[in-house]
């Protein structure tokens, strides 16, 4: 059982490594955010879960930690994506469609106001 937990922790760290590689390889901010959010959330979740399996008496704090990360990480990446869209970060050339920019132009959404 303990060995199983340790292996899960190892799996989590491998996923974190994948997230890091993705951060370097992806072409623009949005794709980096995609890879970063999903993989880092899952990586942390798995490595903490592994420790919770090794040490079942510690489970309470680890569950709080997992829930906290699971809840806040998507929100922060959403906020960051929104900010980078408003300050016109260069979007990758491979992008096929950008509906949000089209909507912004259509409604003449100004610099600051709504």
């Amino acid at each position, binding site marked *: 059982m303990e060995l199983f937990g340790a292996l899960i922790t190892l799996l*989590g760290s491998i996923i974190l*490594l994948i*997230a890091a*590689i993705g951060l370097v390889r992806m072409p623009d901010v949005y794709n980096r955010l995609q890879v970063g959010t999903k993989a880092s959330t899952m990586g942390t979740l798995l490595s903490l879960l592994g420790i919770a399996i090794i040490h079942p008496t510690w489970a309470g704090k680890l569950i709080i930690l997992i829930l906290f990360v699971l809840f806040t990480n998507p929100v922060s990446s959403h*906020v960051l994506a929104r900010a980078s869209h408003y300050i016109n970060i260069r979007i990758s050339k491979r992008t096929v469609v950008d509906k949000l920019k089209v909507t912004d132009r259509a409604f003449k959404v100004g610099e600051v106001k709504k």
Partner: protein
Amino acid sequence: MINTILTIALALIFLSIAIIIYRFMLGPSSVDRVISFDMMTIASISIIGIISYMSDRVIYLDIATVYGLLSFLAVIIIAKYLEKGL
């Protein structure tokens, strides 16, 4: 045995932090650096989890929770600064 596996996991996490720092130094825009900061915090949570197992102290996990809170707050304030919404 378990300690060996966890040491390998620790090494992998440090490798990923090194790669993230590469992106931090390279990153063309500020947003890339903020993403790197966020991921470094998240990786540190895993590091603290493993360290607290290795030292056999459950109390270290409180600090990891503070890290989760910290990453959320810092990312939000930087994002709001960048989009001029502070």
